[in-house]
């Protein structure tokens, strides 16, 4: 079976440790069941994406990809899965210096290549070059998972930085480092 991959990572400035977006995303991920069916997975990603879309004007940086190349998709997906190991995450809060802290939310979906879901998502991701790095584009793309029948999703991953400790938000320095070299400023 060949695969396609859709992935996105967005960065928002945290509005303090009680940031409602962070709290909501944390709750959605924390409460996700160990076992799930297609409908619940559809709903799960719908909630994640809706939460983010409501805040799309706060998106500061981001990246997204859609590949239907069988040679690339699994590897790309694995690159995102590897993020679960926490290499990019802070293990402890950065010293308080009055500068902003950020959250980064990542999702990636490995799809059955050529399935109807894949075709729908592929069409949805047909973005002109001039709009690749627009907040509105990211908002639009976050509607994509709603188009999917999770029957065609082989694997999926979602994660949020910071994790259980909101004080472990990312700093500007973190985001400009090598771990996040691929991020682009959104306009």
């Amino acid at each position: 079976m060949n695969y396609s991959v859709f992935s996105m990572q967005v960065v928002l400035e945290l509005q303090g440790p009680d940031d409602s977006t962070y709290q909501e995303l944390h709750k959605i991920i924390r409460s996700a069941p160990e076992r799930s069916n297609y409908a619940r997975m559809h709903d799960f990603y719908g909630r994640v994406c809706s939460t983010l879309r409501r805040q799309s004007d706060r998106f500061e940086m981001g990246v997204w990809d859609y590949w239907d190349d069988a040679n690339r998709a699994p590897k790309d997906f694995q690159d995102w899965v590897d993020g679960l190991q926490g290499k990019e995450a802070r293990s402890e809060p950065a010293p308080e210096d009055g500068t902003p802290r950020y959250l980064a939310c990542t999702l990636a979906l490995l799809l059955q290549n050529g399935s109807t879901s894949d075709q729908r998502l592929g069409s949805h991701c047909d973005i002109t070059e001039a709009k690749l790095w627009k907040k509105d584009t990211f908002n639009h793309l976050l509607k994509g998972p709603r188009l999917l029948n999770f029957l065609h999703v082989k694997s999926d991953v979602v994660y949020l930085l910071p994790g259980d400790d909101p004080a472990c938000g990312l700093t500007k320095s973190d985001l400009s480092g090598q771990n996040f070299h691929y991020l682009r400023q959104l306009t």
Partner: protein
Amino acid sequence: MSSENDQNPFRRKVMTRQPGLIGAQWWNEGLSAMSDPVSRRKALQALAVFGGAVAVGGFALASTSGEDEYLELHDALQMQRERGWNFGATGDSLTFTGQTKVPLKPQELNALATELTPKQDALKPFSQATLFQSVTSSSAGSLALALRPIFTPEMDTAFKQGQALASLFAEQPEAARATAVLVDLPGPEAIAFATALAERFEPVFTFDNWPHPVGVVPAHLTLAAATYYQPTLRELASRRTLPAPPVFVLDRQRLAPYNDQEREFDNRYMARMPSAEQLRKLGIQHVMYVAPGGKGQTQELDDLNEDFVAWRTSGLDVKLVAAKDFQPEPATAAVATGPGMTGSPDGGTPADAGTSAMATASTPSRPSHWYYGGSRMAHDSFWFIYPWGRTHTSTGLVHGLPSSGILSAKNVPQVPPNVSKGYAYEPQRRTTMFSAIPRGATGAFRPFPSGFGKVAMRTSSNSRAILGPAFSSRSSWSRSSSYSSSGG
């Protein structure tokens, strides 16, 4: 599959909760169940797709020996160096076509890598002696014993075609000094063609693999052809005037289709070319790419596309000529000839190709006359069609031909009808398996296809020890193992 799986096919595979990160990954076991049961072939295919980490790909192998195994991709050449050139297929032998009676002297074999390394320091960085080093490596073992020099009719043809091109450069020594030739033909023919150019051009071999009995790239034939031409190349090297322009020698089989992961060994590799800046430092202004010609054979191979486009963009003039553009004159076409023939074609330019030393590699035969377009008249039109010499200006004013005296503008030659349109070739960027053009927005540069030039090795889940290759039908795994999908 249990009813739990039927009802809830998504299983959470990973859940991470740290101060700095919370996240999870799920795996759809239902989608896996829709496909065929995981077979050895599927495991290997998945491994190729996943590009090196079967633990990632999720195909665990339950061995009957009681030890769990998984597949891991390793660099194919590195595995050969560690385990022997023919590991996994020691019972298979190499097959040579066109074996000659030319004796293979051990001392010459030992000198192969040294003798075929460019003499000019400026060219050494672009030479790949990997293939030639294979016969002297400590892990080469029986390779040297198995090796036989070969000379085939195709090599004979390629040599004559190379002679014809050499004769053209003999007419235009200044153009020759500013030209890098890339000969991209099947390995043995590439060596034959390049040998014919080797008095004026310095061969730069780019063979970056080792032979293997079940290798998809028949590198042993290239090696065998190299041993055949080694004395000729040695002689021509001593006669070559330095500095000499390069002729890069490429094996067109380097990207051979790799379809059967069970029975084939992936000894493919990519050609590595100099940058435009490096070529300019060598005094190069033109690049002549020699492709076989014929259907689908008049375009650069995929791994060269980005280099060629970059060269063109930087102002280098990249043109193609098909080997098939060089044909025997009809009157002599039926004459059988041997390799390294130094026949004197009607007192014309091929006789002056500077290849008299090539007799060392020849067998007795009668001469034939090979020309661009298959005739002397077409041959003389070459530098008008490829206007790198001093015979043509942008206004179309003809100054003259060295071999024919001054011509008038009325005598401007026409393009022969039986040649390729390589003179009009311009490299164009296209999507290949090596392209780094992103479909999305990351712009991430990923030049190497997953699984390319790799070999799947069975690895112990417990000790991480490599147990053996997965490609051979003789492996114990293929006989006794069963497989299960453990999720990615």
